[in-house]
Structure formats: structure tokens, C-alpha cells
């Protein structure tokens, strides 16, 4: 049995279509990433799967339970961490954890093993009000609270948004450890670099699924040549590349621009000539292995 099965889900808010014909399945014990820009429909999807929102059309099964009919059973077995910090800011770390343990009908002691790794990191601040924690600490506490009742499946909605780079890395290390203990994890994120840490990812944009596969496989679907281009002034270079006749797409990626040409007969010298004719010298061009982000950009382009 699969942990999550989603069949043709639609969600509309009045005239706005948030989700269109979404279908996918998540295996048990999988770390499944839902990747998409802001407003793609990630939160709506998570809220449907956690029984907080009713789908307009379609059905979804979580651990064998229907999200509409059996919502009571689902609520007992899922852990949900909303994108927005939503613990009691005026209660202390310890009180929050105790409160959520209790309303799930358990105690901290009973499931302490499960959250121990994470909780020990925030334990020094256990008497501090949750509202006064730093961003990373808040996320750790929220994760503890979402896990204190030993859920079999975790839904984490943008857990690393607004968290510093170090804490993000730590957070993902925690997720990978959690995964090893057998919990199915669905995580959504707008960060492409996090996608490669998932077992499988689904790319979502404007409420539509673009691709679902292993991160490596998705990267392999990139069927064009890709080059990393760099010069002294990347901004001028970007504008010049956009004017170049054979450009299919160009995006800034860190200190390089990822450039893919249209057609298979492209030669580097063509580009170099074009650029020098425009007065742009000292250009560096390397071949680039496509990353998942390149694929996503590509898919988004084809889609819109």
C-alpha cells in the first residue's frame, strides 16, 4: 500500500483555480518533495492532504484513509507543520510541546525518543516563550510538536522558508535521519537545491504538476545543450544573450549564466563572435551538467 495516493484533485477558490488535475502517489518511507514557486498551490495541496481543506474535485487517500470521509483517522496519524509558524507564541517551548502531546492523547515521555535529537537542541531554551525563539529554533520546535504523537506520515509545508542557510542544512539532516526511522515525509519547498535531497520530487506550477520523478532522472530529462557562461559584467552579458538569435533560454545561476541554445548545430565560436562584436570580451564558456533547477526553468517555460 502506498502512503499517499492523489487522484485528479482540483481546488478552486471562487474564480481562482489553485489546483488542476493533480495526481501522484508517494511510497511508504519516502522523502517526497513538492517543488514550486510561491503561489503554485503547494499549501492548498498540503491542506487537502491533512484534511483541513476539502478538494473541489477528485480524491486523495492517506495511509488508506480517504481525506474527506475518514478525516478523523487521518488526523490521528499525520503530523503537519504549516508554513506559517503556528504554535502558541505566549507559551514556552516546553508548554507548547506538552500541550500538543496532550491533545494528541500522549505524553512527551512516551515518544521522547522520536523527538530527542531535535528537542535536545532547543532544550536550553525550554522556558522561553515560543514567540521569542529565532527562526530556526521555531522550526525545530514546530517539527517536534508535529512529531510528538508519533505520526506515520509527516507533512512539512515550506519548513525552511525564512530560515538561515546553516539552520536549513541542519533541518534537512534531521529530515534524512527521520526518514531512516521509517516515517513517510512530504515536504514542500521553493528552494531547488533542497530538491536533490529528496527521494522523488514533484514539480508544480500554477496548480499543475509538471513532472514527478527522482531528482537525477528529472535532471536527465533536460534534452538540450547547456553552458555556463560568465564574464566581467554578467548583467550586460545577460541582456546580450537575450538578444542573441540562437538563444533558447538564459538564466542567472549564482556567478554563472546558464545558457541553452536552440538547435543542435550550435558552436561556441558563434556565441563568442557575437559577443565580441558587441564589445564583450573575456567571456568564459563551459559545458554544464543540467541540474533540476534547469529542468524546472525549462518546464516552466514550456508550460507558460
Amino acid at each position, binding site marked *: 500500500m502506498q502512503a499517499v495516493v492523489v487522484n485528479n484533485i482540483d481546488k478552486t477558490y471562487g474564480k481562482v483555480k489553485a489546483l488542476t488535475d493533480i495526481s501522484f502517489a508517494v511510497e511508504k518511507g519516502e522523502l517526497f518533495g513538492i517543488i514550486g514557486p510561491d503561489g503554485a498551490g503547494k499549501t492548498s495541496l498540503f491542506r487537502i492532504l491533512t*484534511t483541513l481543506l*476539502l478538494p473541489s474535485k477528485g480524491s486523495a487517500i492517506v495511509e488508506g484513509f480517504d481525506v474527506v470521509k475518514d478525516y478523523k483517522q487521518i*488526523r490521528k496519524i*499525520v503530523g503537519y507543520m*504549516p508554513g506559517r*509558524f*503556528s504554535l*502558541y507564541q505566549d507559551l514556552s517551548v516546553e508548554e507548547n510541546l506538552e500541550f500538543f502531546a496532550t491533545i494528541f492523547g500522549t505524553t512527551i515521555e512516551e515518544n521522547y525518543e522520536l523527538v530527542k535529537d531535535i528537542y535536545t537542541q532547543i532544550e536550553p531554551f525550554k522556558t522561553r516563550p515560543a514567540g521569542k525563539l529565532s527562526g530556526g529554533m521555531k522550526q525545530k520546535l514546530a517539527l517536534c510538536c508535529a512529531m510528538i504523537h508519533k505520526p506515520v506520515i509527516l507533512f512539512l509545508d515550506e519548513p525552511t522558508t525564512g530560515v538561515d542557510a546553516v539552520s536549513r542544512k541542519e533541518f534537512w539532516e534531521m529530515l534524512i535521519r527521520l526518514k531512516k526511522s521509517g516515517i513517510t515525509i512530504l515536504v514542500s519547498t521553493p528552494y531547488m537545491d533542497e530538491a536533490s535531497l529528496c527521494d522523488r520530487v514533484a514539480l508544480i506550477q500554477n496548480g499543475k504538476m509538471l513532472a514527478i520523478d527522482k531528482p537525477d532522472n528529472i535532471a536527465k530529462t533536460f534534452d538540450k545543450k547547456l553552458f555556463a557562461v560568465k564574464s566581467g559584467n554578467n548583467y550586460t552579458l545577460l541582456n546580450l544573450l537575450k538578444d542573441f538569435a540562437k538563444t533558447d533560454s538564459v538564466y542567472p545561476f549564482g556567478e554563472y549564466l546558464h545558457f541553452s541554445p536552440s538547435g543542435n548545430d550550435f558552436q561556441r565560436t558563434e556565441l563568442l563572435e557575437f559577443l565580441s562584436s558587441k564589445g564583450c570580451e573575456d567571456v568564459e564558456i563551459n559545458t554544464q551538467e543540467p541540474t533540476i533547477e534547469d529542468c524546472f526553468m525549462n518546464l516552466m517555460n514550456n508550460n507558460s
Partner: protein
Amino acid sequence: MRTILFILRKEFLQIKRNKAMLPIIFIMPFIQLIILVHAATFEMKHIRLHVIDKDMSSVSRELISKFSGSPFYDITSYSFSDKEGEEDLRSNKADIVLVIPEHFEKKLRKENSCEVQLIINSINAASAGLINAYTSSILLDYNVNLVAKWSVMNSSVQASTIETTYSYWYNPELNYKNYMVPGILVLLVTIIGMVLSSLNVVREKEIGTIEQINITPIRKYQFIIGKLVPFWIIAMFELAFGLTIGKLLFGIPIIGNVALLFLFASVYLLVILSIGLLISTLNNTQQQAMFITWFFMMIFIMMSGLFTPVESMPEWAQKINIINPVAYFIKTMRMVLLKGSGFGDISGLFASICTYAVIMISFATWRYRKVS
């Protein structure tokens, strides 16, 4: 059960940590009672009377003495012209002008009737009405006495007279404070209960914690109980606190059974808190909830009979009061405190408020959704 206890504990912790709560709970009743009880009074004492006596007879003097002997009137000036009287009214030196026409006595004896004129300053309609009522009753009283006296002197005229005597029951001195304090206590308890409960769930919506609660297997009834009980306790405490202040500071009589009062209050609060909770579940921001609560509270309080008697409202307004919980409680409060009514006397009101409570709680529970 353990879940409910924990929700309660959580709510109380949050109340305790909210720095504005303690002053609200302890200082608000004090200030409300002290200011409102002294200020919101309809008591008419020292009505300034201007007398224009154009008759100057023994009968007219006797009539005037009725006023000068009354604690309600101060005769501020005498004159003989309407103009002076009007001038006094205009310059706010008099509240009422009494004009006794010429040949007052003669006319009375001959025609058995004569008119006197009252000119009342009616800028404040309520006090004008009261002045009119007081003055008319004095005149009527005088009239009856006069007829009786003359019928004795002249036995050929048989006039049977009915003498009216007054005794004010349940508030013999017509002490306005005795009337106001119970009402203001109701106001206090209502404001505390309704505002706190109406802002609570909506606050959880605003800060997003309702999401975390909704995802848990917590039952609706546990949630509702967890939300109602803390404010119920606070409001009951407020009532006790306010009653103590009323007794110690204003010496209001507590004739009836206090336990009966608290029994009624406990059900009444369920109604108020459920209304608050309902408002809270229907709105998305604290601002919306606050305005809607205020809207209902204003109507409930203004129509409740706190300031103006319900009996003098038009019939449709009295009908509306059937759904006004505040009216029930004010009535009960006054009946029990001032009159010493027992359970038998308020059983009708009690049955109504119980029904109301059941309806409102069911409605609030039904409206609270764990799914959007």
C-alpha cells in the same frame, strides 16, 4: 477529560501571560460601578420651581405649600408675570413654571374646576417626563383632598372620594443606586464574557494556531468546553467581585438568595459566551469580531431595561427583547436582589435562559468547523 484539563490550563496560562488581563478583571468593575452608578441617575431631586401666583388666595397658597413641603422641589422664585417665568426657563434658572390663574379659588368654588398651567423645560425628555409625573401627582393629590374637604363643608354635595396613598415597595426610598447597581453588574459580566470569548478563537485564526489545533484529533466539544470554561470562571468571579463592591461601597440590599442569582448567572453566561464564540468562529479578524460584538452588545444593553424601562418601549421592541439575554438577566438580578424573589418567581425566566443556552451552544458548536 485530561485533554480538556490541558486546554483549560493552556487558556489560563495565556490569560495570565496577557499583561492587560489583570487590570481588566480587577479595575474595570471598580471604575464602571463607581462612575456609572453615580452618573447615570434619573433621580429627580431639587427640581427648580418657578411659581406665578396670580390669584394670591388661601387655596392657591395651600397648593404652593404642597410643593414647598416636598423634598423634590425647590421653589426658586415667585412672580406675577408669565414673562418672568419664561425668562427663568430660558436662562435655565428653573426647570418648571407653575402658573396659577387669576380667580383660581373663585372658579374652583363656582365651577368646580379650574386649570393651572405647567411649563416644563423638556430639553431632557426623560427628566421632563418625570417632572410632569411628579407634579401631576401632587396636583391630583391636592385636588382629591380639596373635593373631600368641600364635600364635608357642604353636605348637599355628595362626593365620594378615593384617597390614594403611595408606598414604594422593594426600594422604599426610591434609591436610584439600588436600581442601577444590579444593572451595571449585568453590564460588566456581559462585556467581559462576550468580548473575551468573541476575540479568542478569531485570535487563534489570526496567529494561525487554529490550523495546528484543527489537525489534531481533538473533539469539537472538548475544544468548545476549553474555550468557554475559562471565561465563564472569570465572568462569575467578576459578578462576585462586583456584588461585593456594590454591597460594601453602595450598600445595595441583597434580599434574595445569592446562590439563586449565581445559578441564573451561570446559565446566562453560557448564552453570552456562546454568542461570543459564534461571532468568533464566523469572523476572520479580531477587528471584525470586535465590531460585531459591539454592535450586538449595544442593542442588547440599550434594550435591556438597564436605563429605560422595558415597559415603556413600543410593543415591537418588547417583542425583540424575547431574544435579548441581557434583559432576562437584568430582570432576574433586580428581582432577586431588591425583591427577594425565590426560584418559583424566576422559574419562567430561568427556563427561557436555559433554552436559550442550549440553542446558542449547539449553534456555536455546529458552526465551529475543523475543515474549511
